[in-house]
C-alpha cells in the first residue's frame, strides 16, 4: 500500500471529494497560493481555482459565519482555521448558529459544514497557538468533534465529516501532519464517526488516548510489553459521538483504564470518559482507580522543555500503567 503523510491524506481527501462533488469548497486564511499555515491546501488553488479555494480576511467569526450561511443554502463548505486557539472567536457562530439551526428549523435546514483546525502543543508556538480546546465544542449539543491520529484515519474521517449533514469540528494535530501511514488507499473511503479504533490489543490495562496521545500510548505499550505488561490502546477517533461500547468492553476485559489527552486535565474530555466508564457496566470490573492524564492547568509555555513538561509524555503513560497495575 501507499505511504502517505497526514497532510497528504487530508489534501487528497479534499481534492478527491471536490473533483466529484461540486458543492464542496474550502475557505480560510492564506489557503490559496500559500497553502495554509501548515501547507494542507498547497496546490489546491491551482487545480480548483479561487472560487472553490477561497482566501478570506482575518476574521474567524466571518469565515465561520459565511460557511454556515453557504451550508444552509446547500453547499458543503470546509473551513480552515489556522490555529484552533482562534476557534474562540468563531464560538458564537459555532455554538449559537451552526449547532442550533437544524434543530430550531425543525430539520428543514442543515448545516453540512466541516471546520478543520490544527490543535496541540509541541511546536514552540507558545500560549496562544498551542491549546487543545476540544472540550469546549464537545460540550455543545449539535456539534460533532473528530480527532484523527493517523493519516489513514484522517482521510477516512474527513470524508465522513464532509458527508455528515451536521457541523463537524475536525481537529488536526500540528505534530501529526508529517507522520505517515503505510496503508492509505488511494480510492476514497469513509470511516464512520463514533467508531473507536483499537490501535493495539492488550489484556492488562486500557489506555484511551486521543490525537497525538495515541502515539505516546503506543510507545508506552511497547515499553511495557518488554516488561511483560499487556496494554490495550483505544483511539475514540471522534469524541462526539463517542464509541462508549468499545471503551466499556475493553475495561471489562482489562479491569484498568487510563485516559490520556493533551488538553488541560481540569475540565477536559477525559473526565467525561471516566464518568461514562464508572456509570457503565464496566464499574464492577474496575480493579484500580480510573486515571486521567492531561496537561497541567497552565498556559502552554514557550520554553520547549517546559512545554514538554506540562503535557503527558510517553514516560508519564508508562508510569501511570505501572501504578494502575501496582508495579510502580
Amino acid at each position: 500500500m501507499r505511504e502517505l503523510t497526514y497532510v497528504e491524506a487530508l489534501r487528497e481527501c479534499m481534492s478527491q471529494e471536490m473533483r466529484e462533488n461540486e458543492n464542496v469548497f474550502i475557505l480560510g486564511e492564506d489557503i490559496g497560493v500559500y497553502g495554509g499555515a501548515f501547507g494542507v491546501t498547497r496546490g489546491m488553488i491551482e487545480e480548483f481555482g479561487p472560487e472553490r479555494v477561497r482566501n478570506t480576511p482575518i476574521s474567524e467569526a466571518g469565515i465561520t459565519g459565511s460557511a454556515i450561511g453557504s451550508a444552509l443554502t446547500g453547499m458543503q463548505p470546509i473551513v480552515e482555521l489556522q490555529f484552533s486557539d482562534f476557534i474562540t472567536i468563531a464560538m458564537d457562530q459555532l455554538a449559537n448558529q451552526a449547532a442550533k439551526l437544524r434543530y430550531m428549523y425543525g430539520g428543514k435546514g442543515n448545516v453540512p459544514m466541516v471546520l478543520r483546525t490544527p490543535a496541540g502543543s509541541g511546536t514552540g508556538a507558545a500560549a496562544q497557538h498551542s491549546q487543545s480546546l476540544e472540550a469546549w465544542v464537545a460540550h455543545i449539543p449539535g456539534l460533532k468533534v473528530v480527532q484523527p491520529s493517523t493519516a489513514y484515519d484522517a482521510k477516512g474521517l474527513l470524508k465522513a465529516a464532509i458527508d455528515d449533514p451536521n457541523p463537524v469540528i475536525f481537529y488536526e494535530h500540528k505534530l501529526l501532519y508529517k507522520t505517515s501511514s503505510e496503508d492509505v488507499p488511494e480510492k476514497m473511503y469513509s470511516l464512520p464517526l463514533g467508531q473507536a479504533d483499537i490501535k493495539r490489543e492488550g489484556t492488562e490495562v486500557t489506555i484511551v488516548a486521543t490525537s497525538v496521545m495515541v502515539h505516546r500510548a503506543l510507545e508506552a505499550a511497547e515499553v511495557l510489553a518488554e516488561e511483560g505488561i499487556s496494554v490495550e490502546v483505544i483511539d475514540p477517533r471522534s469524541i462526539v459521538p463517542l464509541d462508549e461500547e468499545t471503551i466499556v468492553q475493553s475495561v471489562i476485559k482489562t479491569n484498568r483504564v487510563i485516559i490520556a489527552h493533551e488538553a488541560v486535565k481540569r475540565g477536559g474530555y477525559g473526565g467525561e470518559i471516566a464518568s461514562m466508564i464508572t456509570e457503565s457496566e464496566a464499574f464492577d470490573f474496575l480493579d484500580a482507580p480510573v486515571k486521567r492524564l492531561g496537561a497541567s492547568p497552565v498556559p502552554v509555555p514557550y520554553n520547549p522543555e517546559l512545554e514538554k513538561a506540562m503535557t503527558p509524555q510517553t514516560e508519564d503513560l508508562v508510569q501511570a500503567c505501572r501504578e494502575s497495575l501496582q508495579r510502580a
Partner: protein
Amino acid sequence: MAKEIFMPKLSSTMETGTILQWMKKEGDPVEMGEPVFEVMSDKINIEVEAYEEGVLLKKYYDVDDVVPVNTIVGYIGEEEEEVPETAPEEPAPEETSQEEEPKEYADTVPATADANGQIRATPAARRVAKENGVLLSDMEGSGPKQRIHQQDVYDYVQAAGEKPKATPLARKRAEEQNLDLNTVEGSGPGSKIYAKDLTGSGQKTTGAEPGRIPVKGIRKIVADRMAESASTVPHVTLYSEVDMTEAIRLRSQLQDKIVEETGYKLSYTEIMMKAVAEALKRHPYLNASLSADQQEILLHKEINVGLAVATEQGLVVPVVPRAGEKGLTALVQASKQLAENARNQRLQPEQMQGGTFTISNLGMYAVDGFTPIINQPEAAILGVGQMKETPAEENGNVVFRPKTTFSLSFDHRIVDGAPAAAFLSDVKQLIEAPYELLM
C-alpha cells in the same frame, strides 16, 4: 478487668435472644473458646463461646429469659472481682461483640454488605468476592493502603479451597495448639470447624469411625426433656381402635368450605384436635399438670393443644391456644400456620409454651400404635397411627372399615387408668360420631 458477655446479634433481624441453657455456673472457670451459654434466636440456636479466659463471675439471666441483643448477660474475669449486682441497663453499642463469632453467619451475606464502607476494595474485587460468596473482611489487600484487588480475592478463594472452613477463633486456637485443622471434624454448616471442635481432636479420622453429630440446639432440648419425662413420669399407654368412617365423611363434606375460608386443607389432625378438646372439657384431669413441688395437681382452665411437628432440626411442639373454643376453620388456620412456621424455623418461643395436652400423629407412616412420651408437665399425650382398612363385624358379616389406633400415654401420678380410659373412649366416640361435637 472483668469482661462483659453480650447477647449476640446473630442475624440482621434478630432483636432478642432466648437463653436456652447455661453451660457454666457462676464461679466456674471458663476457657477461651468454651461454650458459655446457648441462645435461641428467631432463626437458629447457637452456643456462645467465651472470648476470655477466667471465671464466670455473674450471669444476669436465667434459662428461657428473653434478652435484647447486645445486652450484657454476664461477666468473665478474675476470681473475687467486683461486677454489678444487677444487669447493666445500658445495652452495648450496636457493634457486634467478638464473643459471638459473627462471621459464622455472615457467609451468606454478600461481601459488599459487610464492608460498611470500611473495607478498601476495588469494584472488581467486590464483584469477585460476591460471586464467590467470600468476605472481603477475611482477606488482606495487596494494593496501596491495603486496598483489596481482584487478584487478592482470587488468591483467597483458591487458598480457601485448600484450607478447611473454620471460624477465626478456631483457626487461632488451632495455631496455638499446633493442631492441623485438616484433622479436625467441624460441627458447623458445611463442616465448618468451631473452636470447641478442637478438643480431643488431632487424630486423623478414619472411614471406620462413626459420624459424629453434636447433641445441641433442638436435639439437646428434645434429648433432655424426653429423658427426664421417661425417667420421672410413670407412663401408662392405652390403645383404642377408632373407626374413621364418619370422620372421613365429615372431612370430605367440610373440605371445600374450609379450603375456601382458609386456603388450607382440613386434615384428620384437626378433627382429632377438635374431638380431643371436647373430651378434655369433660375430663379435666387429663388437662392438668403437676405443680413444680409436686404437691398439687393444677387443673387448667384453658385447653391448649400442642402438635408434635417433625422438622429438619428435630421435634418441636407448637401450641394451638384455646383449642377448646375454636371451630374447625380456626383450628385449621392455627395449626397449619404453626406447622409452617415450625418447618421454616420461624416459631416464636411463646408459640411453643403453655400447652396442656399434646397430639403426636404418625399416621402418615406405616405405624399402627406406639407409646408416646408425655410432653412434661402435661398429664397425657395422644399418639395417632395409620388409618387402614380393618375387618369388622357388622350385622353378622365381616366388613372392612377404615380404622386408626389411638395410643394415649398418661401420667399415672395425676390420673388413674379408669378416668384415662374413659377419656380415650370419649375421644373415640366423638370421632366415630362427630355430630356430637355440635352438642
